[in-house]
């Protein structure tokens, strides 16, 4: 059954959109990532104009994260205080990101820079997570059970001022690192059209030292507000939010996210991390191949947007 999308102005199969939404939704619920870094390229692939894909994806992430965060609230795995601090950074970052985005657009190389951003970030984070989780699994096998939770890089974080107690996470750290994490994720989400969970989750685990169980719910909490802000920015400046597309993606996505949360709760943290790392590396490899291999069509058509 084909459906005509009023803003994207293309006709696509409704079941394809539902399926894509569902698939990405499962991953979103499992890992606490918004799924934007997968969905946005998938939407390009099925022929949605990039500008519409990015803006609509922000809207869809709000919905899939909302149902995900509700599930986490019930299991009390959301650190609201930490979420609020991250959010302050995130909103500032998103506003900054839009300024940066428009500047890159005026240079005419925004596509390339967005793709390069993807490759670099996905590659570094995927690689780090993969090595780290492999080591963790090896340690737990050797120790034959509970490994000592060794946290790294806590020296300089503890030396910073403005300390705050985050009871749910069991942390007493300065607010500066979470603010900076929120800020950089906000910038990236505005430039790359993603929720930023794939950056934030590792940053929270490795940089802030938060327990993995709390990380997923808290990042979803922050993502909701940042992507809602991004959606409004796109809807009012570029008119590229397609609500019909968003609804189809989120109907699949919301159901998928529920299954994902259940699956995620039953898996070990190390297994979750290694799966996420592999997924990130696969997407990175695909994008890198696009940049390195000769494309079949050297020319591309663009509209005269933003003039």
């Amino acid at each position, binding site marked *: 059954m084909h459906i*005509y999308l009023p803003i994207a102005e*293309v006709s696509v199969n409704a079941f394809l959109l539902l399926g894509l939404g569902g698939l990405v939704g499962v991953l979103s619920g499992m890992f606490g990532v918004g799924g934007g870094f997968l969905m946005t390229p998938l939407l390009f692939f099925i022929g949605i104009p990039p500008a519409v894909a990015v803006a609509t994806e922000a809207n869809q992430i709000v919905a899939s994260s909302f*149902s995900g965060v509700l599930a986490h609230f019930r299991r009390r795995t959301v650190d609201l205080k930490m979420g609020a601090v991250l959010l302050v950074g995130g909103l500032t970052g998103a506003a900054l990101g839009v300024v940066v985005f428009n500047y890159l657009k005026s240079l005419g190389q925004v596509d390339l820079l967005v793709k390069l951003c993807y490759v670099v970030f996905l590659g570094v984070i995927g690689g780090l997570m993969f090595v780290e989780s492999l080591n963790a699994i090896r340690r737990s096998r050797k120790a034959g059970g509970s490994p000592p939770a060794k946290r790294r890089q806590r020296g300089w974080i503890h030396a910073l001022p403005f300390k705050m107690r985050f009871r749910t996470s069991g942390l007493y750290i300065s607010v500066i690192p979470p603010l900076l994490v929120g800020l950089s994720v906000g910038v990236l989400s505005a430039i790359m059209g993603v929720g930023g969970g794939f950056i934030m989750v590792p940053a929270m685990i490795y940089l802030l030292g938060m327990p993995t169980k709390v990380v997923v719910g808290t990042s979803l909490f922050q993502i909701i507000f940042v992507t809602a802000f991004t959606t409004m920015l796109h809807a009012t400046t570029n008119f590229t*939010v397609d609500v019909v597309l968003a609804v189809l993606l*989120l109907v699949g996505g919301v159901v998928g996210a529920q299954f994902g949360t259940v699956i995620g709760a039953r898996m070990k943290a190390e297994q979750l991390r290694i799966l996420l790392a592999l997924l990130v590396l696969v997407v990175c490899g695909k994008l890198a191949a696009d940049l*390195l291999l*000769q494309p079949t069509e050297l020319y591309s*058509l*663009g509209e005269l947007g933003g003039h």
Partner: protein
Amino acid sequence: MLRFLLALVLFALPAFAEEETVVLGLSQDRVAITANFDGSNILVFGAIKRETPIPPGEPLQVIVAVSGPSEPVMVRRKEKKFGIWVNTDSVLVDSAPSFYAVATSGPFHDVISDTEDLRYRISIERAIRSVGAAMHIRSAQDFADAVVRIRTDNGLYSIRENTVAVDEQTLFRTSIDMPADLTEGEYSTRIFLTRGGQVVSFTETTIHVRKVGLERILYTMSRQQPIVYGLMSLAIAIAAGWGASTAFRLLRNS
């Protein structure tokens, strides 16, 4: 009085040079884009009206050209730099139709001569206008060709030879397929009658392509009240997210 009539006849004479004119029919002159719009098919048919017998010589040929609204297009070309493929040169094609279909009653170059094609801009290549190409860019024509190639691959541009049926040099019909990815606007439909490659008559009409119903409401709202539209999109998203979550939980608990 007589002199006046004579003057009138003489004055009108050039118009009478067009001895054969088209009486045109369309199966529909408006296309409504609804939520489940899946392309459209328009039947273009008509008859040739003439005051004199059918002229001897070359048979009558018919060309039907449907053109969507024209817009400027930015064409970019990738080149390999530092090991990766990046957009380097770009050319602004001043005006290219969003949709273009030409149907002819015979092989294109038999039906119309090159000079007549140039004058009426009938073939796809001529329907695209590109004058602003910067001089430093190599082979600017490649960029215009790329527009035609990419849009032809997407089914937006097509030339369909031998698809206009002409009976007894008097009746003709053809059907124009319009893809699902149509943009709104006025689609100009031109019908040319040719003899020996020369255009003997030319008529034009318009097909209106419009979004209707929900599609129309959403589109208008997103343009005229973007803040309301954005908030509504968020509200719908959050409601659906919460609704599905609740439904799922009830389903599992029951």
